[in-house]
């Protein structure tokens, strides 16, 4: 494991934000951490970059000058212009002279901001702000790129362009780790970790996770809720049986990634309930 977390835990008082989590972050790959709000995604990323102290376990990271990090809420200064933002970032990481002019011009053109260099950060659209933030984080060719929910709230076109930048970073050798709430983005990764309340409930490549799905998945065409653990997909119901027996009316189905994520979360929830009862 080049970088990442090894059996890492983060405890705030009585609350365990991260529970014995292992996530390798390797160069030239994209690792994605998926979970809902409060699952611990931000804590995981902050543990990797060193913003949070580990209560146990280990974290490996390159030196600060080789990391690019964008927290969920920010990435740029809204009261500075595009040029001024780039200047600040470049100055902080020591990117100067011709290399700076070259890379920043190329980056701004790619993003579509070449004609908007004097516009204030706050005047850019949400998607544009994110693209600029990611572009700036890549100026100094970081060995490790850490992005916290880079595409949340961003429109689908900007999202595709953002992923183009992110994949490009991995193609050039960076080790990329991204946190997201969008399950459909997790396909893009070579390693996915599903996070639920600080715990990893599944880890591996997307196909590994699908293959590791326990029990059987079924689909029910009617609008009535079937017996057992079920959830809606459009007008139909999906039902999951931990054993091999599906309830009547259900047809067996091969799970896709979204199904696999649901099942992992359900399995985790069920396990918790069982543990809770055993008191």
């Amino acid at each position, binding site marked *: 494991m080049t970088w990442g977390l090894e059996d890492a835990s983060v405890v705030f008082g009585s609350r365990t934000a991260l529970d014995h989590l292992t996530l390798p972050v390797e160069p030239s790959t994209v690792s994605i951490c998926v979970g809902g709000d409060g699952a611990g995604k931000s804590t995981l990323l902050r543990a990797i970059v060193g913003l949070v102290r580990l209560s146990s376990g280990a974290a490996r990271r390159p030196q600060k000058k080789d990391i690019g990090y964008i927290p969920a809420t920010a990435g740029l200064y809204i009261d500075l212009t595009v040029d001024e933002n780039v200047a600040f970032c470049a100055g902080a990481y020591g990117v100067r002279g011709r290399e700076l002019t070259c890379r920043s011009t190329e980056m701004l053109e790619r993003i579509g901001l070449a004609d908007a260099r004097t516009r204030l950060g706050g005047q850019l659209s949400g998607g544009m702000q994110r693209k600029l933030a990611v572009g700036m984080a890549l100026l100094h060719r970081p060995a490790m790129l850490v992005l916290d929910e880079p595409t949340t709230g961003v429109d689908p076109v900007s999202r595709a362009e953002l992923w183009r930048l992110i994949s490009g970073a991995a193609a050039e050798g960076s080790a990329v780790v991204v946190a997201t*709430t*969008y399950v459909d983005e997790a396909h893009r990764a070579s390693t996915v970790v599903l996070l639920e309340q600080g715990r990893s409930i599944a880890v591996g490549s*997307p196909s590994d996770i699908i293959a590791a799905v326990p029990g059987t998945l079924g689909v029910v065409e009617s609008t009535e809720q079937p017996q057992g653990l079920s959830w809606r997909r459009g007008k139909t119901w999906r039902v999951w049986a931990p054993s091999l027996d599906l309830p009547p009316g259900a047809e067996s189905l091969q799970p896709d990634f979204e199904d696999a994520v649901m099942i992992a979360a359900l399995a985790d929830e069920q396990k918790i309930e069982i543990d809770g009862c055993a008191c």
Partner: protein
Amino acid sequence: MVALAETRHVTMRFGSFTAVDSVNLKVGGGEVVGLLGANGAGKTTVIRLLLGLVRPSKGEVALFGAPPSMRTRRRMGYVPQTLGLYDDLTVQENWTFTESAFGSTRVALPPSIRDARDRLVGTLPLGLQRRVAFAVAFSHQPELLVLDEPTSGVGSLSRARLWQDIRDCAEHGTGVLVTTHNMEEAEQCDRLVVMAGGRVVAEGTAAEVIADRHVVEARCDSWQEAFSVLDAEGLIVQVEGDVLRVPASPEHVQRVLARHHLRGAVATVPANLEEAFVSIVSAGAAR
């Protein structure tokens, strides 16, 4: 099917900027309609037109058959992206506030949120907050629900439960209009309306929107190298693990790979909803 909410050739201009251009939108009882579009595509303006917060420059907006008014507002429920709840009040206090504001009779808290009645909304996890916001919007039994990005930021289980609530409403006859950026969520809707540049550029089920669009899947020895060369061509390449998806013809992809002495297997596969969306919107922008 009676349209609960309808816009007919509605246009909205702010000075010289046309936010909405001749949009026809219909939401009927019992169906879940998804409004999909880039930021600035006009989604928010359409919502504001339906809510009666602005009046159209041209065209008509009908809510339950008549132009939006205070009376028709009472028959609809709206959950904005910011939820419209007070963080520093408890769930019960928020509920009571909305009840008296709408003048509805005392309704008990639904079971899904009853356990959290005395907790401050600001202390609840986001998934639960969203369920509370939804329940509050539905407390006065509206016939039409407008939800702005209802499951944004929420985990899988909470998302599923929220959509269960939404489907239950629809099955009781409520019409639901949802705006979203999330493809997974878009696929939960019965019908999609795709907007770009203020216009409706596609309509129908997810499958109909995708139509017969295809992308090329390329599997190469080193996806990183293949990505770099294809990206340099200006193609918006998406990566899935170590498989590349390229919105171009297979011949084009083969040519580029060959030029850089890279070997790979290319195959044509159907596009997914996101790729279809990007292609529709880019085509619309190019017009």
